[in-house]
C-alpha cells in the first residue's frame, strides 16, 4: 500500500501495511493506529502483540459445536449438566454469547460460521453443515433450534436446513420473529408485523 518514503521508518511502513489489511481500516486509519502504537508504552505494545500471537496459536474450533475455544471439546460441550437433546444453530460464535446471556437456554450449540448468500457465492458447502449432520447421526438429538439472523441470508439458511433436516425426523423450530422490545408498532414493516401476528400468543392468566 505505502510507497517507501524517506520520511517514514521502514518498520513503521510495514506496520501501516499490516494494519491496512484489517477490515474497516483505511489508509489514514492505518497510519493513525500505527503512530498510536508507536507512542504506546513498550509493555502495552508487547501485551497486544503477544495477545495476537496467542489467539492464533491457542484458540481453535471445537470439534463438536465449531465454536472458538482454547480446549477441544469446548466448555459448553463438556458440561454434563446441559441438555444434549437440543441443538441451537447459530451463524457466528458471537451469537452463542448473546444466547448464553439470556441464561434461559441450557441446550447445546452449533456454529455454522456464516449464512447462505447465493449472490456472494456462499453456499451450504462453505458452512459447517456436514458437521451438524454428523452430530445428528447419534440419534440423541430431538430438537434443532434454527437461530440464524432474521434477514434474507439467515432465512435462506434456515429454509435450506429445514429442507435438509426434515427427512431425519428431528423436531425443527425457529426463533420467534416479531416486534422488538421497546419498538413502536407504527414503524414496523409489513413482514415483521405479519410474522408477529402469525406468532401471536394467548395471554395466560
Amino acid at each position, binding site marked *: 500500500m505505502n510507497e517507501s518514503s524517506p520520511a517514514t521508518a521502514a518498520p513503521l511502513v510495514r506496520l501501516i501495511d499490516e494494519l491496512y489489511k484489517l477490515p474497516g481500516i483505511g489508509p489514514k486509519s492505518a497510519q493513525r493506529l500505527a503512530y498510536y502504537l508507536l507512542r504506546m508504552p513498550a509493555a502495552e505494545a508487547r501485551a497486544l502483540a503477544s495477545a495476537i500471537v496467542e489467539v492464533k496459536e491457542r484458540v481453535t474450533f471445537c470439534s463438536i459445536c465449531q465454536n472458538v475455544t482454547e480446549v477441544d471439546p469446548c466448555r459448553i460441550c463438556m458440561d454434563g449438566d446441559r441438555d444434549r437433546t437440543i441443538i441451537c444453530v447459530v451463524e457466528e460464535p458471537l451469537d452463542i454469547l448473546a444466547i448464553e446471556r439470556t441464561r434461559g437456554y441450557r441446550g447445546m450449540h452449533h456454529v455454522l460460521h456464516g449464512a447462505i448468500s*447465493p449472490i456472494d457465492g456462499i453456499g451450504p458447502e462453505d458452512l459447517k453443515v456436514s458437521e451438524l449432520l454428523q452430530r445428528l447421526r447419534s440419534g440423541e438429538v430431538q430438537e434443532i433450534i434454527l437461530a440464524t439472523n432474521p434477514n*434474507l441470508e439467515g432465512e435462506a439458511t434456515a429454509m*435450506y436446513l429445514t429442507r435438509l433436516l426434515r427427512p431425519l425426523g428431528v423436531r425443527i423450530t425457529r426463533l420467534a420473529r416479531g416486534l422488538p422490545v421497546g419498538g413502536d408498532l407504527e414503524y414496523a414493516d409489513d413482514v415483521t408485523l405479519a410474522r408477529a401476528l402469525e406468532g401471536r400468543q394467548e395471554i395466560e392468566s
Partner: protein
Amino acid sequence: MPVPRMYKTEGVILRQRRLGEADRILCVYTPTFGKMDVKARGVRKTTSRMSGHLQPLTRCMLQLAQGHVSDVVAGCEMLESFQPLRDDLDRLSRALYAAELIDRFVPERTHSFPTYRLLVETLRRLADANDLDQTLRFFEMRLLDQCGFRPELEVCVGCGSRLEAVDNFFAPISGGAICRVCAGGSMGARTLSLNVLKVLRLLQHGSYDDAMRVRTEGSLAREVETHLRSFIVSVLERDVNAAAFIERLRREGVKHAVEA
C-alpha cells in the same frame, strides 16, 4: 438539474454488505438514478426502525441525503415485500439470481425504466408463478435485449443466411445461432435443436403470457437454460454465483425424492 441535498426515490434492494459496527451498504436499483450504493446507518441493531424495510428483494420508497462517498438513507417505507419469495427457497433462489443478473449487467448510475419495470414484474411473477424456471428464462432474454446483448436467432451469425428449420448450432461467443456450415469454424458451438430454437424465439418475441403457455419440461427446459446461461456467461465473462445454488437445490431435491 442538480440533485437536491435530500431527495426521494423508490428502488429495489439488490444486495447488502456489512459496514462497521451496525451499518450496511445497500445496493439499490432505482428507476430514476439507476443502480447505486447507499449507506444505511444502524440497521443491524434490533431496535432499528428501518431494518425491516431495507431487506434485499424489497421495493421501497427511500429518502436519501447526499453524502461524501455514498448517499445515506434518512428514511424509508416498504412498498412491496414480495413475501412468498421469503417463504419458499426455490422462489427465493431464483429471485436472488434475477437480482444478481441486474447487478452484473447494469452499470452504476445509469437509469433505465424498462429494466426497472422488468425486475419488479419478475419479482412479482416469481412470487406467484408455477413455472419458476420459464419465468426466469423470460427475464434473462428480456434483460439481454434491454442491455444491448440480444442473441441472434433468425439468421446465422456466421454467414447471415436465414436459419433453416432443422437442427442448427448455438455459438455464444459469436452472438447467437449459427448454421451447420459455419458451425465448424466457431468456438464452443453446441447443437441447437429446432424445438429449442422455437422456444428461444418465443421468449424473445412473445409476451410473458405466450411464453408461459408453452410447456417446457425435462430435457427441453434444460437445453433452453443451458444455451441462455452459456450466452450470459459469455457476455459477463464470469459465472453467475446464484446459479450454482439453484443447481444444488435441484440436485438435492432429486436426491430426496429418490430416497423418499
